[in-house]
C-alpha cells in the first residue's frame, strides 16, 4: 500500500473546516484533541495501567513502579537497585540499555485480590533474566508486598554485541496485558540480538507468552510439539505492543523492524511470526556475532526494500505458514512501540481505531517518524483499510506507551519524561 492512499490530509482538512463552521460537505466526525500533562519530570516512563477510578500505576525503566492516585498524589511502591524513596527497594531489579522495569498490568480481579504485575530485568539468577513479578498492593496504595516471580526465565541480553543499539539489555520486549476476552496474561518478549532465540522451542525470547495469574501455561496454547507450553506465538523480533480488538478480542501486536518493516500482526494461537536471523541460511553467510538481524549492512543507509528481501521480518520462504503482517509501515522502521484501541462515541469516526505509537529513529535516510497513527484495522486483524496520523497537540515525541484510561481518554507516556492525557472534544 503506498503512503499516498493511506494518509488522508484531505479528510483532516475537511474535518477542520467543519469545526470552524463551514457548511458541512461531509459527514466526517473527527474530534478535536486537547491534552493535559498528567505527570512530568519522569525518567523514561515505560507503561501505565488504570483502575476504574483513575488510579494509575506506572513504571520508569530505571526507577521502578509507582502509582498516581485520583487526587494527584504519587506513591513510589517498588524501587530498583540504587533507588531511594520507594516504599520497598528490590536490589535485584536492574536496568541497562533497553531493559529495566517495563510493562505493568492490573489483575482483572483487582477488587478482590489487589494484585498487580510488572515485567523487569533481574540479577537474581545468573545470567540475568527478565521476570514477571506479581505483588499485592495495600489498601491505601502505599506499599506492595508478597512478591512472587511468576515467570523467572525470560532471556535477557547479557553483554554488548557488534550491532546497532548493541548494548546489553537490547531487544527486551516487555509489554504485559490481560486479555479481556480470555482473562490470561500475555507477555511480549524480544530476541536479545541472539539468532537462536526466536525459533527456539524452549527459550522464551522472541515470543508472546500466554499464562495464568500463577505463571502457568494458559489452557489451550497450541504451540508445536516440544515447545514450552507457555508459548502462544514464536518467531518474533522484539514485540513492544499488544492489545485486543474491542469486539472480537483478537490479540494484535506491534513488532520493531530491522531498519525496515515495522509490523502489526494479528496473533494466531501457536503461530510463527517468521523472524529467523540465523547466519548461513536463507541465502545468507556469516553475520556479526552470529546475528543477521540488520544485514546486509548494519550501519549504512540502503533501500529498505533491498534489506527486506535479504533479511525479511516475516520469512515466508522458509516458513510458508508464518503469520502474515496486517501492515508493515510502508516498509520502514521507525521505532513502533505500543498499541491500543480507541473505544467510545466521544472518538467519533475514530471509535474502534487502532492507535500505534512510534518513537522515531531517523537512520539511513528513513524519516524519523515520531507520531501516533490511527489505523482502521479489519476485525480479523489481517489487513488495514486506512492509516492516518493522529493530530496530537504535543506534536512529535518518543511515544513509548499508549493506554486508554477508564474515562475513555488516551494516555501516552513519552521517553522525554511525561505522561499526557489526550481528550477528544
Amino acid at each position, binding site marked *: 500500500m503506498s503512503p499516498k492512499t493511506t494518509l488522508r490530509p484531505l479528510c483532516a482538512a475537511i474535518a477542520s473546516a467543519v469545526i470552524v463552521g463551514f457548511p458541512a460537505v461531509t459527514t466526517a466526525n473527527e474530534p478535536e484533541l486537547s491534552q493535559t500533562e498528567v505527570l512530568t519530570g519522569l525518567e523514561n516512563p515505560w507503561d501505565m495501567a488504570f483502575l476504574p477510578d483513575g488510579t494509575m500505576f506506572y513504571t520508569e525503566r530505571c526507577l521502578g513502579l509507582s502509582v498516581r492516585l485520583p487526587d494527584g498524589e504519587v506513591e513510589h511502591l517498588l524501587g530498583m537497585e540504587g533507588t531511594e524513596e520507594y516504599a520497598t527497594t528490590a536490589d535485584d531489579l536492574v536496568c541497562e540499555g533497553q531493559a529495566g522495569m517495563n510493562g505493568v498490568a492490573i489483575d482483572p480481579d483487582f477488587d478482590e485480590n489487589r494484585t498487580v504485575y510488572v515485567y523487569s530485568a533481574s540479577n537474581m539468577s545468573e545470567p540475568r533474566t527478565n521476570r514477571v513479578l506479581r505483588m499485592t498492593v495495600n489498601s491505601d496504595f502505599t506499599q506492595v508486598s508478597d512478591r512472587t516471580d511468576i515467570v523467572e526465565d525470560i532471556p535477557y541480553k547479557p553483554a554488548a554485541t557488534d550491532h546497532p543499539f548493541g548494548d546489553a539489555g537490547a531487544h527486551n520486549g516487555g509489554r504485559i496485558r490481560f486479555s479481556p476476552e480470555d482473562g490470561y496474561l500475555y507477555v511480549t518478549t524480544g530476541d536479545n540480538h541472539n539468532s537462536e532465540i526466536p525459533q527456539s522451542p524452549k527459550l522464551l525470547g522472541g515470543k508472546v507468552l500466554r499464562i495464568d495469574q500463577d505463571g502457568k501455561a494458559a489452557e489451550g496454547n497450541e504451540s508445536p510439539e516440544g515447545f514450552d507450553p507457555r508459548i502462544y506465538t514464536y518467531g518474533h523480533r522484539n514485540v513492544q505492543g499488544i492489545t485486543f480488538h474491542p469486539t472480537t478480542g483478537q490479540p494484535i501486536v506491534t513488532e520493531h523492524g530491522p531498519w525496515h518493516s515495522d509490523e502489526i500482526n494479528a496473533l494466531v494461537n501457536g503461530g510463527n511470526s517468521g523472524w529467523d536471523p540465523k547466519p548461513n541460511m536463507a541465502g545468507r553467510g556469516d553475520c556479526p556475532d552470529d546475528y543477521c538481524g540488520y544485514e546486509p549492512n548494519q550501519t549504512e543507509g540502503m533501500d529498505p526494500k533491498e534489506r527486506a528481501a535479504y533479511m525479511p521480518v516475516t520469512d515466508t520462504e522458509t516458513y510458508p505458514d508464518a503469520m502474515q503482517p496486517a501492515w508493515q509501515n510502508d516498509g520502514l522502521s521507525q521505532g513502533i512501540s505500543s498499541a491500543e484501541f480507541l473505544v467510545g462515541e466521544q472518538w467519533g469516526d475514530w471509535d474502534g481505531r487502532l492507535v500505534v505509537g512510534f518513537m522515531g529513529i*531517523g537512520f539511513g535516510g528513513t524519516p524519523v517518524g515520531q507520531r501516533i497513527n490511527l489505523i482502521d484495522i479489519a476485525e480479523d486483524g489481517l489487513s488495514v483499510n486506512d492509516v492516518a496520523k493522529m493530530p496530537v497537540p504535543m506534536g512529535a515525541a518518543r511515544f513509548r506507551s499508549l493506554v486508554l484510561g477508564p474515562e475513555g481518554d488516551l494516555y501516552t507516556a513519552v521517553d522525554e519524561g511525561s505522561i499526557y492525557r489526550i481528550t477528544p472534544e
Partner: protein
Amino acid sequence: MNTSLFIVIAAALAMGSATGQAADKSAGEALFADACAQCHGPNGKGMASFPSLSGRDAEYITSRLETYRAGEKVGSNSFLMIPNATDLSDDDIANLAAFIAESAE
C-alpha cells in the same frame, strides 16, 4: 539533510558570520530543538539509547561534534550520530556547544 534543518543552519550561519562574535546561544537553541532534541530530549537529558548531554562543558561537546563530523566512531551507536554532525559548520558547533553547556539538564 531536511529542509527545515537546512534553513535553521543557514540562519545560524548568517547570524554567526554577520556578527563574527562569540557563540550565539539562541541560534544553538533553535538548531538543537530542530535537529538534536528528537534523540537527546528537549533539554538534552537523554532518552532511551541516546546519551544525556547534561554536565558536559562546551569544550567537550565541541570536540565530540568535531569527531563525529569527521566521520569517526566514538561509541557503539556513532553511526546514528555521525549523519547528524556531517553538515554542521564551525559556527553551528560553537552555538550548539554554548547552548548545551549552559542549558542541558
